[in-house]
C-alpha cells in the first residue's frame, strides 16, 4: 500500500503562486475558459488539501481532460503551432494539480512549470520578462524544496529564501555556460508564433492615423551608428512609399493583385535597379534593432542597402524582411545620404501611377494647383509657392477638425489645421494636380540620442509622413511640408512643435518619458534605455559571431580544448565558491546557558575520571555515578537535580544555583 502523502503546505502555496505567475502573462493567448478551469482546479486542490473534498474519480478526470482538449481544439482549430501547444501545456499543468497524490506528482507539476516558464520567452524576451521568469522559477524551486524538507521546518518564507540561495548560487555557472556553450543554430523547422495586432506605422494612411500613433511612448527601434550621428534634418527613416490615393486614403501601389513592390532577395540590388541610382561619398553604416511590428517592412535612412541576407530590396530602395518581424529584429544598413534616385526618366507606367488622382475629388485644389503652376513657371518655383502657402497661415496640431469628402479641399482652404499626414497628403495632391510626379512616404523622423551609450532611440511618437517629388534630371527629392509649418518638429521633436497645451496631452504619467525635465528621473530613464539596449545586444542577440568574438578575446583562440578547459575551470571555481559558502554558512543555534553549564559539568566529571556515554541523559548518568563512583554522588545528584529543574521551567535563580553547584565540584582524587 502506498502511504498517504499529504503535500506540505509551503510546497502547495508556492506551487499555486508559481502557477499564477506563469499563467498571467499567457492569458491573452489563451481561451477564456482556461480562467474557469484554473479557478476550479485551484479550489478543488485547496479543498483536497483541507481534507474536505476527495480526489476526482477516474471518469471525472477523463471528462475534464476531454472537455479541455475539445475546448482547445475549438479555440485554435489545430494542435500544430506554438499557441495551441502552450495551451495544451498549461492545461496539463493545471489538471495535474488534481492528480498530485505522491511526492513524484509534485515533481512532475514543478517540471511542467519549468517548461511553461520557457514558453514565455518565445513571446517576450525583455529584461523585465526575464526577471519575472526568474522569480517564477524560484517559486517552482521552492515548491520542490518544500516537499523535501523535514516536518516542522517548512516555513514558506524560509523555504523561499533557501530556494533563492540555490538559484543565486546557480547564476554564475549559468552565466559561464551561457557564454561558453556553443550555439548550434536551428536543427529543424519549428512553428513560429502567430501574428498579433501590428504595431507602429501601418500600410495605409488616412487623416487622423498619425495623431493617434504619436501618443504611443513605446520604442519603435534603436540605432547604433558606426560613425557620427547625422543631424536631425537627415533622420528620415523611410518605411513605406504610398502612391495609391482613393480621395481619402493613401496605400501602396498595386502590382497585379498584390500591393507593395516586388522584392529582390539577393544581397545586392539587381543591376537594372542599380542603374537608376547614383551615389556620392562614403556610405553611413549603422545597426537597427527593430521592436516587433508583425510587418515585413524595415526602416532605414535613404538611400539604404543592406548586406544582411534576411533583408531584401524593393525597387524604390526600401528594405523588407523575409519574415514578419514578430520578435526584436536586428539588421545592418549602409545608407548613402547623397544620392539621386531614378534621375534619368520615369517609365510610362510609373509616371501614370505617380500622377494619378481620383476623378471628382478635391476640385478646388486641382484648379488652384494648375493656376499656381502656370504662374510659377518651373516645378521648383511651384513647390516653393505651395510651401510658402503652408507657412503663411497653417497650424500644426494634434487635434485637427474633421474633414469632409473632399478632405484636401477642406484642409487647404477651410480648416487649415492639421497633422503631418494632412500636410503630406495635401502637398502630394497639389503636386500631382500640377503634373509633377509625387508620392507619400511614411516612417519615422528624428530620434532621441542616449548620451550614455551613443545610440538613437526612435519612438512611435516620432512617426511621420512626408512626400517625395520627382523632378527631371534630379530624380526623387524629399519634401517635408510639415517642416514648412513647424520647423521645430524636424529639429527637436514633436513636443517642441506643438502648443504647450497640446504637448501636455502627450504626457503619460506612467511613462518616464514624461519626466524629462527632472534630471534625476531622466538619468534613470537613460540608464534603463542603455540596460535594455545592452540586454538586446549581449543576451538576446548573443550569437555564434558574438560568442566567437568574446571567446577569442577571453581565451586567445577558440579551440575545442580551450573551450572545454574554460568550461571546466569556471565550473570548478563556481563549485569551490559554493562549497566554501556551504562550509562556512549556517547559524549555530546559540547554546542555552543551562546547557552550557551542563557541558562544563560533564567536562569536570571527565577530569575526575568519569566519562559520560554519548547520548546518556542526566538521570542515567546520575544512576551510573551512584553505583560506580559513590563519592561523587552527592555533587552529581545535586547538579542533575538543579539542571532538570532549570530545564523544566522552574523559575527563580535556578540558573545561578546551577552555576554555583557546577563550580563547587569536589576536589580531584590524587
Amino acid at each position, binding site marked *: 500500500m502506498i502511504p498517504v502523502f499529504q503535500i506540505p503546505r509551503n510546497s502547495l502555496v508556492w506551487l499555486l503562486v508559481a502557477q499564477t505567475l506563469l499563467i498571467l502573462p499567457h492569458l491573452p493567448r489563451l481561451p477564456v475558459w482556461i480562467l474557469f478551469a484554473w479557478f476550479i482546479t485551484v479550489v478543488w486542490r485547496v479543498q483536497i488539501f483541507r481534507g474536505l473534498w476527495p480526489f476526482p474519480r477516474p471518469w471525472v478526470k477523463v471528462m475534464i481532460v476531454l472537455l479541455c482538449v475539445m475546448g482547445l481544439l475549438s479555440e485554435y482549430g489545430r494542435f500544430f503551432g506554438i499557441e495551441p501547444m502552450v495551451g495544451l501545456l498549461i492545461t496539463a499543468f493545471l489538471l495535474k494539480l488534481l492528480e498530485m497524490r505522491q*511526492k*513524484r506528482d509534485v*515533481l512532475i507539476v514543478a*517540471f511542467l512549470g*519549468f*517548461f511553461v*516558464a*520557457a514558453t514565455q*520567452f*518565445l513571446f517576450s*524576451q525583455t529584461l523585465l*520578462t*526575464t526577471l519575472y*521568469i526568474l522569480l517564477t*522559477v524560484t517559486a517552482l524551486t521552492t515548491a*520542490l*524544496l518544500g*516537499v*523535501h*524538507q*523535514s*516536518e516542522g*521546518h517548512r516555513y514558506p518564507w524560509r523555504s523561499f529564501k*533557501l*530556494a533563492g540561495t*540555490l*538559484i543565486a*548560487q*546557480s*547564476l*554564475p*555557472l*549559468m552565466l559561464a*555556460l*551561457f557564454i561558453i*556553450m556553443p*550555439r*548550434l*543554430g*536551428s*536543427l*529543424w523547422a*519549428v512553428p513560429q508564433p502567430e501574428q498579433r495586432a501590428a504595431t507602429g506605422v501601418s500600410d495605409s494612411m488616412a487623416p487622423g492615423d498619425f495623431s493617434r500613433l504619436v501618443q504611443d511612448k513605446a520604442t519603435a527601434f534603436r540605432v547604433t551608428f558606426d560613425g557620427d550621428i547625422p543631424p536631425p534634418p537627415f533622420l528620415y527613416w523611410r518605411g513605406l512609399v504610398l502612391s495609391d490615393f482613393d480621395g481619402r486614403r493613401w496605400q501602396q501601389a498595386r502590382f497585379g493583385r498584390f500591393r507593395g513592390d516586388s522584392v529582390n532577395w539577393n544581397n545586392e540590388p539587381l543591376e537594372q535597379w542599380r542603374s537608376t541610382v547614383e551615389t556620392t561619398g562614403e556610405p553611413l553604416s549603422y545597426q537597427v534593432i527593430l521592436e516587433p511590428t508583425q510587418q515585413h517592412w524595415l526602416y532605414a535612412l535613404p538611400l539604404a542597402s543592406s548586406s544582411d541576407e534576411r533583408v531584401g530590396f524593393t525597387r524604390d530602395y526600401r528594405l523588407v524582411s523575409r519574415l514578419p518581424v514578430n520578435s526584436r529584429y536586428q539588421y545592418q544598413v549602409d545608407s548613402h545620404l547623397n544620392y539621386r534616385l531614378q534621375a534619368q526618366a520615369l517609365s510610362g507606367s510609373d509616371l501614370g501611377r505617380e500622377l494619378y488622382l481620383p476623378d471628382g475629388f478635391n476640385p478646388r485644389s486641382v484648379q488652384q494647383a494648375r493656376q499656381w503652376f502656370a504662374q510659377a513657371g518651373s516645378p521648383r518655383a511651384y513647390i516653393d509657392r505651395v510651401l510658402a502657402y503652408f507657412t503663411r497661415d497653417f497650424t500644426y496640431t494634434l487635434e485637427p477638425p474633421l474633414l469632409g469628402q473632399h478632405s484636401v479641399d477642406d484642409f487647404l482652404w477651410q480648416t487649415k489645421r492639421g497633422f503631418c499626414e494632412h500636410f503630406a497628403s495635401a502637398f502630394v495632391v497639389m503636386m500631382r494636380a500640377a503634373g509633377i510626379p509625387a508620392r507619400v512616404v511614411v516612417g519615422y523622423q528624428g530620434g532621441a540620442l542616449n548620451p550614455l551609450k551613443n545610440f538613437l532611440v526612435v519612438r512611435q511618437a516620432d512617426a511621420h509622413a512626408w512626400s517625395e517629388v520627382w523632378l527631371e534630371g534630379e530624380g526623387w527629392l524629399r519634401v517635408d511640408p510639415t517642416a514648412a509649418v513647424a520647423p521645430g518638429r524636424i529639429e527637436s521633436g514633436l513636443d517642441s512643435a506643438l502648443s504647450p497645451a497640446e504637448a501636455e496631452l502627450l504626457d503619460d504619467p506612467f511613462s518616464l518619458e514624461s519626466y524629462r525635465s527632472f534630471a534625476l528621473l531622466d538619468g534613470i530613464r537613460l540608464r534603463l534605455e542603455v540596460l535594455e539596449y545592452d540586454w538586446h545586444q549581449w*543576451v*538576446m542577440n*548573443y550569437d555564434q559571431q558574438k560568442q566567437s568574438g568574446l571567446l577569442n578575446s577571453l581565451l586567445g583562440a577558440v579551440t575545442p580544448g580551450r573551450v572545454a578547459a574554460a568550461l571546466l575551470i569556471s*565550473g570548478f571555481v*563556481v*563549485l569551490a565558491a*559554493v562549497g566554501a559558502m*556551504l*562550509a*562556512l*554558512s*549556517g547559524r*549555530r*543555534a546559540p547554546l542555552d546557558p543551562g546547557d552550557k553549564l551542563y557541558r562544563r559539568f560533564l567536562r569536570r566529571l571527565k577530569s575526575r575520571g568519569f566519562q559520560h*556515554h*554519548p*547520548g546518556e541523559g542526566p538521570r542515567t548518568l546520575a544512576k551510573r555515578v551512584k553505583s560506580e563512583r559513590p563519592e561523587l554522588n552527592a555533587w552529581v545528584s545535586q547538579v542533575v537535580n538543579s539542571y532538570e529543574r532549570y530545564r523544566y521551567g522552574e523559575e527563580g535563580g535556578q540558573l545561578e544555583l546551577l552555576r554555583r553547584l557546577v563550580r563547587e565540584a569536589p576536589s580531584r582524587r590524587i
Partner: protein
Amino acid sequence: MIFQSAANDLRARLHRWADARRPPAASQQLNHHSLFIFPSGAGLVFLVLITMLWLVGTNYENNLVLALAFLLIALFIVTILHTFTNLAGLKLQLLGARPAFSGESAEVRLLVSRSGKRGRDNILLGWGESEEQVLSLIDESEKIVSVYVPTRGRGWFDPGRLRIESRFPLGILRCWARLDMDCRILVYPRPIAAGPLPVAQAIREDGDLSTARGADEFAGYRSYQPGDTLRNVAWKQYARGMGLYSRDYSAFVDTRLWLDWDYLAGLDREARLSRLCWWVQQASKTEAEYGLRLPGQGLDPGRGGAHQEQALRMLALFELEAADSSARSGKRKSTGATT
C-alpha cells in the same frame, strides 16, 4: 522488466563493491569515502527536461530559453553540493540495540551528531530495505534516533547495513551511505502460547521428591493455615490435642516455579524454546520466582527484569552460542536459526 532486473543486478554489484570499502565500526563519520551520490529517478526526468529545453532554445535560436536550460543545469550541479554536504560530516554512533522477540522489529538506538554550523535536513535512516526513520538536525547538533529492523530467527541477529540517505534539497539527487555499524541484536525465540504455567507439575514433582528423600527435607511444624494440603497435617499431634499443625517440608515450602525443557516432550527444539519463552513472559508478570531448566544448563529461580533477560538470553542462544562465536571470529553472518 529486463531493464529492472539489470538495474537490480547493477545495484547489488554496486553495494558489494561499496561494502568492501568500509570496515564495520560502531562509530562512523560520513565522508567522501562512504557517501555515494547519483541522480534520483526524478533527477533523470529533470535532465530530460533540460535536454528538451535546450532543444527548444536551439531550434528557436532563443537565447533566453537556452539560458533557462543552463540555469537548470547549474541548479542541478549546485544541488549536488547541497545534497552531499547535507550528509557529509555527520557522525553516527551505535548506542545499542534492544533485544526483540523473533518476528518483531528490534529497536536500534543511534546517536547522530553534526559538527559545524550548518543544519541538516530530511535524512532517512533505515536498515536494509526496511522502513526509514526521518531525522533532521537543524536547531540541535545531535539527536538520538531509534531505527527499527524486523528480525528473523533467534540468536544474534545481524541487521545488515544501515542505510542513511538524503534527497534534500530538491529531490533530484540521492546521496546515500551503507554503513556496517557492527551491530548485533539479541533475538529471543518467538513466544508461542503453551497453556497455563506448569505450577501443578511443580508441586507433584516436589511431592515425589519428598517421598524419595524421606525426612531429610522435614523442617518442622507450623500452625495450620487454611489451604495447606491435608496430606501434610500432623494428625498425630492433633490427636494428642495439641492443635492443628502442618508438617513443614523445606522442599515443599519452595513455591518457586521451574520451567523445564522436559515438560514439552514431543516437540522439536525451536517449538519447545518458543513455549518456554512464552512461559518466561507469563511468569514474569506474576510475583513468583521461576527457574529454567534446559538440557545441559539451567537458571536458578529468581525474579525481576534482569532475571527475565537472563532467561530469555539463555533461550535465545540455546545451542547456538558455540557456533555463533566461531562465526563471529570470521566474517559475521546472520546466525539466527529459523523457527
